[in-house]
Each structure stands twice: as C-alpha cells, then as structure tokens.
C-alpha cells in the first residue's frame, strides 16, 4: 500500500513539465533508494537513448508528411491528401510498402559492404542527437567537448556513403559517392571554422555551454556572427545533400547518386536518415545561432524543448524553402564557393572572434556596452564581405548582362518575309546579327 500511496503522490504532485529532466531525476532518486549508483546512471542513460529513438521514429514519419506538404504548397499542388486525415498516414503507407518490397542487390555488388550501409548510416544519425540540449539539463550526454563530438560523428557518415556508392558497382552510384566525399571533406572546413568562432568567443566546447553563454549575455549568436551563421547554414545544407547542393544524388544527372541501387526499405532507411539529419542539423543551427532552448526569458514560462522545436521548425522550413526554390549548383562551382568564399570568410570571423574575445577578457570591457557594438561591427563586416564577393569573386560570365534583342525588320525578319512573299529574291540571312 505504501508503494501505491507513493505512486499516487508522484502522480498527484505537479512535476514540472517545463523540464523533462525531472522525470529522469524521479527515476534516479527511486533507484538510488534501493540500488547502487552505477545502476541509476546506466538506467537513465539507456532511458535517454530509448527516448531519443522513440522520438525520432514518429518524428521522421511526420517530417516526411510535412516536407511533402510544404513542397507541394510551394508548387501549387495539394500534396498527399488521400491516406488518413489530411494525408497524415501517407508516410506510414509508404513505409509499409517499402518494407514489403523485395530487397534487390546487383549481381556484381560487393554483398557485405552493400548490405551494411543502410544500417550503419543510422549510427551517426542517432548519435548526433545525443549532444543536442532540449533544455538546461535535457541532453542525453552533456559532453564538455560536445562540439567536437558533433563534428566527429557527422564526419563518419561520409564513409558509409562511400561504402554504399562503391559496393553498388554502378557508375551513377560511384559518381554520387565521389561527389559526396569531395563535398563533405570540403564543406566540413567552413563548418568547423564557423563553430570555432563560437567556441573561441564563448570559451566552451559544450553545446549546452554555448546556449548558456547566449542566455547569460542576453544575445543570440546570429547577431554577433551573422556570417558564421550563414556559412554554417550553407555548409550544413551542402553536407545534407539538399538543393542547391544536392549534387551527390542529383536526380537529373546521376539518377539517385550513391543509393541508386538500393531498393525497398534499404532506400527507405537512407531517406529517413537524410530527413532525420536535416532535422537534427536544423536543431543545431537553432542551438548554436538562435539561442537554442532559451528565448529572452520565455523559457521560464514555456517548456524549453518546445522553444527549441519551434526554432528548429523555422530553420527546417528555411531548408525546405531553399530546396523548393533554387536550382542546383555544379560540383566545381560548389567547390570554388567553399574554398574561395566560405573558408576565407569564416576564417576572417575566427580572427575577429579572437580579437573581440581578447578585448572582452583582457581589457575587461563591459559586455552590455561592448557586445552591441561588436554586433553592429560584425554585421557591417558581414554585409561588406558579401558585397565584396558579389562584386569581385563571382564567376566572370555572371557579370556580363544577358539580354534579348528583337530582330524586327532585319533580314530573316519582315523584309525577308516580303521578299519571299513577292518571290523576287531568295531569302538570305546574315550571320551574327547587327
């Protein structure tokens, strides 16, 4: 009876749902009453991981629906609206179809390496969620080198992609894999540099620490380092293979890139991980540059994870928007944009961050005065850098104006028409116009 009383006590008590960590604390305290300490930490760790897994699955299904619906609206269509209310069950129907489909493998494929990637691709896709803080104490692992962990884990995905592309024994897949490797290696540099700016300025490599720094200083990093935010956004969308940088699975060129030969649920897994990565990267963009779970005191009233989800949704919408609007760049253009524009720009901002951090720490400047000044300076610097790029570093043909002129009454135009009509002369045409 005491157990039951305790349980009703627990249920009756107002456990603050602003912080889901309270739930974990409850379990920890309960285990600590009768068990050893290590059991409590293991159980909470496993529970955290299971929680992430339990959240990701349904979220992916909803995301597929959201993405298809939003893209449809961009394209003047309805999108899925047949299965279930508002088409919400369409992703479920698709998943069932994919699971039931035959799993084909090319005869010439390297079977073991061909079968592994759809499973392995899930590992970085899940691990990366571990360091995303949903609230002040709400991350599965609040590592003190969280930023490093994030970059290291996301870097391993490219190995799996190359395995998929190479083992398929298909030229499209190989091209896709080669492009993916080249892109990942290149775009990781501006990504690292953009995050280095934040690490240098806030003095912590913990993801939650960066959010807490933004909370303490009452500023979000997109205002302080806008160019780093833009560079990170672009580099992330390139790493995620999304338009305008989806060259590694460019549909009109190399069919489906590295996963051309995967059928059924194997393809479905690649697709799901891609969407999940898009979501988690949106979450990290929101965390690093938009203040994460913190929003000028609103996090006192609204659950912090809802704030993070709203910000993540905004970034995700931006990613869908660019995908629905822009054409794709060519691989050499993407490479030159990375190395000639993003890397120097982010490097410049690392230096700027060093200088400003030194001014704050060594010179002891007052942050309430110094930070707004720095923000204005950095925004001006960003605009200047973008304008410099637009004027100087753009590829040459873009600067030439493109125009169409009207042939009017030139030869081949009306005059020739009259000539032919009167049958006096054969029409002749002049080469090159004017």
């Amino acid at each position, binding site marked *: 009876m005491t157990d039951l009383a305790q349980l009703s006590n627990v249920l009756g008590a107002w456990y603050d749902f602003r912080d889901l960590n309270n739930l974990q604390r409850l379990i920890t305290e309960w285990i600590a009453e009768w068990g050893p300490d290590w059991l409590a930490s293991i159980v909470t760790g496993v529970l955290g991981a299971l929680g992430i897994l339990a959240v990701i699955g349904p979220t992916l299904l909803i995301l597929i629906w959201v993405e298809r619906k939003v893209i449809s609206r961009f394209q003047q269509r309805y999108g899925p609206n047949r299965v279930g209310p508002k088409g919400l069950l369409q992703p479920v129907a698709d998943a069932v179809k994919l699971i039931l489909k035959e799993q084909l493998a090319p005869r010439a494929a390297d079977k073991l390496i061909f079968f592994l990637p759809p499973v392995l691709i899930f590992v970085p896709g899940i691990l990366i969620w571990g360091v995303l803080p949903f609230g002040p104490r709400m991350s599965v692992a609040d590592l003190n080198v969280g930023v490093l962990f994030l970059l290291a884990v996301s870097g391993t995905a490219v190995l799996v992609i190359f395995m998929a592309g190479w083992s398929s024994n298909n030229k499209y897949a190989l091209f896709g894999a080669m492009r993916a490797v080249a892109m990942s290696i290149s775009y990781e540099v501006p990504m690292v540099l953009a995050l280095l700016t934040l690490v240098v300025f806030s003095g912590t490599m913990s993801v939650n620490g960066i959010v807490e720094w933004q909370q303490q200083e009452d500023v979000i990093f997109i205002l302080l380092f806008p160019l780093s935010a833009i560079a990170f956004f672009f580099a992330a969308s390139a790493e995620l293979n999304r338009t305008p940088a989806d060259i590694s699975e460019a549909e009109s*060129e190399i069919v489906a890139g590295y996963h051309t030969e995967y059928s059924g649920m194997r393809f479905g897994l690649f697709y799901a991980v891609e969407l999940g990565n898009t979501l988690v990267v949106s979450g990290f963009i929101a965390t690093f540059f938009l203040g994460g779970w913190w929003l000028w005191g609103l996090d006192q009233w609204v659950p912090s994870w809802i704030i993070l989800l709203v910000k993540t949704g905004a970034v995700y919408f931006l990613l869908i928007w660019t995908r629905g609007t*822009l054409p794709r760049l060519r691989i050499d253009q993407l490479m030159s944009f990375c190395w000639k524009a993003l890397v120097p720009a982010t490097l410049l901002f690392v230096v700027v961050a060093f200088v400003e951090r030194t001014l704050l720490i060594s010179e002891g400047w007052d942050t309430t005065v110094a930070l707004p000044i720095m923000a204005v300076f950095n925004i001006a610097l960003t605009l200047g850098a973008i304008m410099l790029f637009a004027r100087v570093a753009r590829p040459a*043909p873009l600067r030439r104006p493109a125009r169409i002129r009207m*042939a009017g009454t030139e030869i*081949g135009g009306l005059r020739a028409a009259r000539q032919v009509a009167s049958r006096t002369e054969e029409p002749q045409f002049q080469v090159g*116009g004017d």
Partner: protein
Amino acid sequence: MTTADDARLGIQEDSHLAMQGTIEALTTGDGSEPVVVNLGPQHPSTHGVFRLKVTLDGEIVQDAEMRIGYLHRSMEKLAEERTYTQNIPFTDRIDYLAAMSNNLAYCLAAEELLGIKVPPRAQAIRVMFAELQRVASHAMANGTFINDCGAWHTPLFYMFRDRERVLDMFEMTCGARLTTNYMRIGGVAFDLPDELLPTLESFLADMPDRIADYEALLMENEILHARARGVGVISPEMAINSSLSGPVLRATGVPWDLRKANPYCGYENYEFDVPVGEQGDCFDRFLVRMAEVKQSLKILRQVIDNLPDGPWLADVPLHARPEPGEAYARVESPRGELGFYLVSDGGPAPYRFHCRPPSLINLTALKEMSIGGTLADAIVTLGSIDIVVGEIDR
C-alpha cells in the same frame, strides 16, 4: 578476390608483378581512365526513351554519342497505307507536345498537293491554335529545362498551370488535350465553341503577370546564371551549318523565323517581333523562349481582334486523290522548322510521307555543345535543346 577477378584485372601469379598489373590495368598513362556512362534510355533527364552515351574524364565530357530509335513507330511507312485525312492523327503523335503545329504543317503540305484554298476564318483559327501550342510547349520546355538545372520541380509546376489552361482550351474546342487531331485538310475540324473566346481573353489577361512572376524568379537567379550561361555554346556559323532552327538557332543571334521568312496562314498580317539571343548558350535559349511566349500572346491578341467570320472548312472530298506530284510545307513549330514532304502517285494515300523533325536535327549539335563541359552541363544543354523523342524517332 576470386580467380576470375584476378584474370579480369590482369593480376599475375607473382605478387610483386600482380600489384603492378593491377595498377596498369586500372589506369592509363596519366593515371586515369575515361568512364563511359549511359544516360538513358531510362533516365530522369532524357525526356523520354533517348540514350546519350558520354565518355567522361572525371566529370568532363570527352565524347558524347547519341543513340536513338527506342521510340520508333514507323509512322512514315504506316502513313503510306492511309488516306491523306487518316494521316492527320499520326502527326499528333510525332511531336506530342506540339500536336497543333504538326497538324498544321501536314495539312499545309496536303493542301499544297491538292491545290486547296483555306477560308480566312480557318486561317485565323489555325494561327490561334499554333500560337497557343507554342505557349504550352515553351512552358513545358522552360520548366523541364529548369528542372534539368536541378530545381526541385517548382518552376515546372508553375509553368504547368499555364499549359493546363491552354490544354483546357484545346479540350473545349476539339475534345482532346494532347493529341488534338484538330486541323483538317482545308481548314479545321470544328468551329470555335462559344466559351473559348472568353477563356482565351482571361488567359491573355493573366499571362503578363505570370510571365513577370517567372522572370522575377528565374531571370536574375544567380544559380541559374551560373548553370546556364556560357554552357552549351554554339556559334552562329556552326548552328547554320548544322541546319539548326527554332529557339536554338535564334539564341545564337541568327534572326531566322519561318513565320517571317516564309509566312503561312497569314502570319504576314500580324505584327510581332523575332527575339534573338547573343551568346548561343543555354541561358539565351531559355530567354528566347520566354520572349517568344510574349510575342505569341501579342499575336493571339491580334487574332482575337480580327477574327473573320465565315466557313472554317473548305469543301474537300474525304478521300481526295491529288494529281501525281510532290509538295513540301514547313512551319515554325515551337522547336524549329517542321516540314512535311508528301509525294503523290495519284492514289488516295501518299506515295511518300516524310517529316523533317526539328528535334532530331537540333539534337545533332548536342555533341558539339557538350564536349569539354561537365556531365551536369551536358544534361542542362540537352534540356535547353528541348527535344521530343516522339519526333526524333517517329
């Protein structure tokens, strides 16, 4: 690694030599070997069953070979077994994205062979539908071109709205949307329905805004510029020597438009301009098509304002037997010069039925345009030529 693999890679018994053998088998002198990649016959970018075999050095196209014939339906031979009127539906299926233009070209050739004079109302209706077809076809061409540049179908779906409206007008006039079978020898099959002209009026009223939308989205789009400008360039001389026509030729700066150069159906009475490009690259082809849509709307406006009354079909026997002889008629289809060559031996069916398809002849320049560019450039160039495989293979 199996023995078969060893043999394939040229691996010797001796391990030291084996390593050398492997490297030599996989590489040539400069450390690389060209890769042959098939784009098609089933491929997202080939707009039908067309196969482009490219030899790639890395991403650079060294050679491009076009393989056609996957959609061959032997229409020219079949047409020799059918009467002149029965052949009209074949022309729908030659260029299924510009059926009206194909109907028109064939009927012009048959009329020339039979010596038939077409009533003025039929002439005006023919011009109206040929220009509507141009609007629809260019919408499709530009949309798929942007798609080949990698846009995720959005411009295509926007342009499809306009095409749908045109196809609705086709449907209300002749009951079919794609394979219209509307033109007849001596005129058109049906008079305009009452509801067509108001629909066309509202279409003409809406289109300038739509085109302004597309221009705002696409004309200054940096990525589109980066992808299409300076890509797939062909010189005016080469274009003329390759016998190119249509927007592909005009994009190089050659002002050649059959509606001006050899007017038919009374095109000499309408006021319109021929837009020409400057560079002869993919972007110019796109711009020329956009400008041509505007000119087509201008012609449509004039057609509505001066639509004559009277019969819409001349008195032509259903199974006409023309005198022995030959005739060639050509029109400016959305893709270029579309010609039909008919030979009569005095019988009810043509002795020879030949089509000069602009898609096939424009496609011959693809190799010239794509060598030296990247694989992605070749795809964009193919999209900018605007081929219809039904017309290439017939």
